[in-house]
């Protein structure tokens, strides 16, 4: 048995030079400290992404994009195909939980200051992954072509039109016309099943490579380490299984509803709100007055949100420029403050 696997390894190594990689994995270690638990968040994101790809491919077996067929085929999946309800609910719940863990991962990395030299690229690729995940959520939300999705997309894309000069053209490009129609559906579908998966896969590949090259960020107080294989890996596996079980439980007890089919001419149902991960931004835009200093409030909003995103992306660089004695306090303030603001705005948006 051992001889056989040894020979197989030799065969592979001769062609792909995997022994250095195995050697590296053997020596890979994870720091052990109070915040170690957050090291699992990234792994869970990876697992959920794999779950999304798998359930997404399964949904593609029956989903037919089109204003006349999207809703009908999703209905067919949830009502007629055996376990179709499960696959659809797993995909929907998985998406939400994935965004949740991506955010958890980001905040923990930020607060542990793991973005510092030499991990700037890891941080930046992570920010790209967050953006791509949200784009995934936004484009996927429309695909069942139900009333709620239709109006949420209408409101969500309206904001793009506010961008000065190019806004109208951008809106046309995103919607495939002036209004949200079957053309929008086709575009979002292409984005959701071809463009975003490709981009996300490549970015995840880069992100993981960066992590492997640099190793896990060490925290000052961490004295002990734990071998990645098998100690950390098995713990990862435990958590993945727990998350899988949670998704299954949610899918069985709270199956994702389909609602009514989208009708362009029907009036918007009351209380249309975006998905929770867009709620804080939505609430922020809603709060702005129509005009500030002659410039439309929404434009200000887009500028503020854009600048925040840009600053987040460039965290490793401006943090470095801060005076040494201020670094700790500024990161803490921004991290916890940002989290608090995000939570408060989301809650506000949810309740209002």
């Amino acid at each position, binding site marked *: 048995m051992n001889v056989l696997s040894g020979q197989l390894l030799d065969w592979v190594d001769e062609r792909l030079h995997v022994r250095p990689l195995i050697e590296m994995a053997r020596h890979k270690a994870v720091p052990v400290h109070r915040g170690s638990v957050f090291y699992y968040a990234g792994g869970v994101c990876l697992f959920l992404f794999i779950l999304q790809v798998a359930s997404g491919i399964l949904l593609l077996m029956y989903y037919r994009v089109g204003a006349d067929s999207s809703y009908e085929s999703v*209905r067919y999946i*949830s*009502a007629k195909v055996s376990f179709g309800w*499960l696959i659809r609910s797993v995909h929907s719940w998985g998406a939400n939980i994935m965004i949740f863990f991506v955010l958890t991962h980001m905040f923990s990395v930020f607060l542990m200051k793991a973005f510092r030299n030499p991990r700037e690229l890891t941080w930046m690729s992570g920010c790209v992954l967050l953006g791509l995940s949200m784009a995934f959520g936004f484009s996927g939300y429309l695909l069942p072509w139900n009333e709620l999705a239709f109006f949420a997309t209408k409101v969500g894309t309206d904001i793009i039109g506010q961008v000065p000069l190019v806004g109208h053209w951008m809106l046309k490009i995103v919607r495939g016309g002036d209004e949200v129609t079957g053309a929008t559906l086709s575009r979002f579908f292409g984005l959701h099943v071809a463009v975003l998966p490709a981009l996300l896969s490549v970015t995840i590949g880069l992100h993981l490579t960066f992590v492997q090259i640099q190793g896990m960020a060490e925290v000052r107080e961490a004295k002990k380490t734990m071998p990645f294989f*098998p*100690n950390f890996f*098995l*713990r990862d*596996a*435990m958590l993945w*299984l*727990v998350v*899988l*079980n949670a998704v*299954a*439980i949610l899918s*069985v007890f709270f*199956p994702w*509803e389909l609602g009514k089919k989208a009708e362009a001419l029907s009036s918007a149902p009351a209380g249309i709100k975006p998905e929770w991960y867009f709620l804080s931004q939505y609430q922020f835009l809603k709060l702005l007055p129509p005009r500030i200093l002659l410039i439309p409030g929404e434009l200000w909003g887009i500028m503020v949100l854009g600048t925040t995103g840009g600053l987040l992306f460039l965290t490793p660089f401006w943090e470095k420029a801060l005076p040494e004695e201020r670094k700790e306090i500024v990161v803490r303030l921004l991290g916890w403050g940002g989290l608090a603001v995000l939570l408060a705005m989301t809650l506000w948006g949810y309740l209002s």
Partner: protein
Amino acid sequence: MRRVAMTVLLSMLTAGPAAAVQNQCAVCHATLGEKHQAILKAFDNDIHRERGLSCDSCHGGNPALDDAAAAMSPDAGFVGAPSKADMPKFCGKCHSNPAYMKKFNPSLPVDQELTYYTSVHGQRLKAGDAAVAACADCHIAHSIRPAKDPTSSVYVKNIPQTCGKCHSNVQLMAPYKIPTDQLAQYTSSVHGKALFEKGDTAAPVCTTCHGNHGAVPPGVENIGQVCGMCHVHNAEFFQSSPMAKPWAKRKFHMCATCHHEHDIQHPTAQLLSPDNGICMKCHSPSSPQIAVASAMQKKLESIEDAYQRAQKDILAAEEKGMDMAEARDLWDASRMAMYQSKTAIHHFSAASVAEVADPGIQNAEKADQAAKDAAADFQNRRIGLGVASLFITFLVVVIYLKIKDFESSQG
């Protein structure tokens, strides 16, 4: 150019007050107390006013004169307010004149006066009874609105109240020795509920069966015709049934004998009961006819029962989030069959009822089975989840033990 504009402006200024001064009726009557003021105010919303008519159009006289005596002299054509006996003719001046009415609404009938005199109201008026209803009792004088206007006293939803104003009045009806509970009965009937509770303006009101201007109680021989206007199959089946001839001979109302008139209730299978059903009025309990009634009752009850069971189970399954679209289609089909079975009763043949009811019962049972399957499926989902959760939890525990095991050896 400027001169032309000045002239136009001037003529407008002078024409304004001149037109206002013209109607002297309003000027004087506004000073004659509340009753007159109320009439003037009400008339603002009257359809006749909207169409450009004024006081003198009906009452005659010369509204341009500010001397009351001259303005309301017979020479000026003044006719005043009509007595009840003269009212049909008073309104008929215009409404019976096709040439005149064409100017306003060419499709409006002009036979109201004529048909009014065929009604019980008209006949009595002709005979000198001034207590009966004439034009202005239903179309409230000075605030007349067309029948399609929801604020009109003769709008379909307001007709029961308009007729009830007199017909529910015990004192008014006492000399005629007719009942006064029609409005109350109608309100609680299937038709009244459709009109008042469901807002179905297609539901029949007083005038649908009795006529409006020519209102009479429908005779025994044509009551079936009246009901048959809407309940086509019921009337048709009855007329071709063995019941038709003997009923006609005995002068039974073909519908009202079982269903009553004003308090028509949603019929239930109970109506056919061999214990206290309506058939027992004539047929003896041991007769073959009662056996047929009993068989029809059983069939109706079984389709109603199957239909309700399916409904309950479908709703329960939908509450659990199951898709019941197909079961609902079957259930809809069983509802149609249920209506048809109730109609088929009027063949007075158990076989005819079974013919439409049986497929309906089958559909309802299929729908019910689908709903039960869905409920079971929902249960299976939980069992499946339980099994999967068991495996996952087991693996998690084993991995945990495994970690403990080798970490203790790692030291």
